[in-house]
C-alpha cells in the first residue's frame, strides 16, 4: 500500500503529484454509460459539429472532474477525505480515436495538477486548501478549480 500523507507533511506551495490521463473515444463511451450522460456530443461527431457547433466530440466535464478527483484521492490516501471540490470547465478537451482495440492514436494527453494554497485547523479537523487544474498537451488550462481535503494528523 502507498504511504499515508499527514497534515504535518504538507507545506504551502507544495505540488500534488501529477496524474496523467489519456481520454479516448472508448473511455468516453464507458463514462457515458457509467455516469449516465448520454449526450451525443460525447460520441457522435456529426452531432457535435452540426448541432452543438463544437469542432468535434469533447470529453465530458464530469469525466475531467473525476480525473481531478482521482489525482486528489491518490494523493491524500485512504485516511484522507476529500471534503469539497469545485471545478470550472473552461476549455474543450478532445478524445483520441482508437487505433486498435487496445491502443489510441496519437493526440492529446491530459495532465491533472494541483498545489497547496493553505493549511488550517478547524473543529479538530486538519484542513488543506488546494488549487487544482487540468492542462492539455499545449499547456492550456482547460479545467480549473479548488479543493479542500482533511488529512490525518500526527499529533
Amino acid at each position, binding site marked *: 500500500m502507498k504511504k499515508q500523507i499527514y497534515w504535518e507533511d504538507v507545506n504551502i506551495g507544495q505540488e500534488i503529484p501529477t496524474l496523467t490521463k489519456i481520454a479516448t473515444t472508448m473511455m468516453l463511451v464507458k463514462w457515458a454509460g457509467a455516469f449516465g450522460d448520454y449526450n451525443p456530443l460525447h460520441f457522435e461527431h456529426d452531432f457535435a459539429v452540426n448541432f452543438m457547433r463544437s469542432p468535434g466530440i469533447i470529453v465530458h466535464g464530469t469525466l475531467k472532474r*473525476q480525473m481531478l478527483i482521482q489525482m486528489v484521492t491518490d494523493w491524500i490516501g*485512504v485516511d484522507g477525505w476529500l471534503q469539497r471540490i469545485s471545478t470550472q470547465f473552461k476549455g474543450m478537451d478532445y478524445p483520441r480515436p482508437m487505433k486498435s482495440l487496445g491502443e489510441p492514436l496519437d493526440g492529446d494527453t491530459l495532465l491533472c495538477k494541483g498545489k497547496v494554497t493553505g493549511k488550517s485547523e478547524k473543529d479538530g479537523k486538519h484542513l488543506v486548501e488546494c488549487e487544482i487544474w487540468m492542462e492539455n498537451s499545449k499547456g492550456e488550462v482547460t479545467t480549473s478549480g479548488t479543493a479542500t481535503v482533511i488529512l490525518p494528523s500526527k499529533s
Partner: protein
Amino acid sequence: MTSEGLKGLIGKKGKPAVHKVELSGLRKIADAVGNRDPLYWDDEYAASTRYGGVIAPPDHFGWPVKWGSNLPFMSSSDLGAELFGTAAQAGYVRAINAGMESEYFLPVRPGDTLVISGEIVGIEEKEGKKGGKMLFSTIEQTIVNQNGDIVAKQRIMTIH
C-alpha cells in the same frame, strides 16, 4: 432581460429522486476513469480500512430506482427536464456543463438508498462575447441517505 418563463424557474424544487447505490455501479465509475484504487476494487483491503468496506468514488450517487426517461441525463430529475425544456422554448436549445461544486460529508456505500432533492437557485441571461445571448443556470442538490444524514451537496452550473 430574462424572460418571464425563465425567471419563474428560480426557487423551483424538483420531486426528490430515489437512488440505489450498488457495487457494480460504483466500479463502473472507477473503471471508466481508469482508477485502480483497491478501496473500490478489493473487498478484503477495503474491509481493513477505516471505512470497513468499499465506498463509492466521489460524485457517484447510485442510479434511480424508477424509470425516469429524462434522457440524455440519467441523473437529471424532472427538475432538470423542466429547466432544459423551458430554456429550449426560450431559444436556448444547446446546453453545456460549465462547472460543478460539491461538498462531501459522509461516505456513500453499496446498499445505500439516497434521496436527491434539487432546486434551481440561479437563472441569468447575459450577452455573449460573440453577440447573441447566453443563459446561465445553477441547480443545487442535497443528497440524503437512508439514515437521514446529508452525504453531499452539489451545485451544477450550465450554460445554455
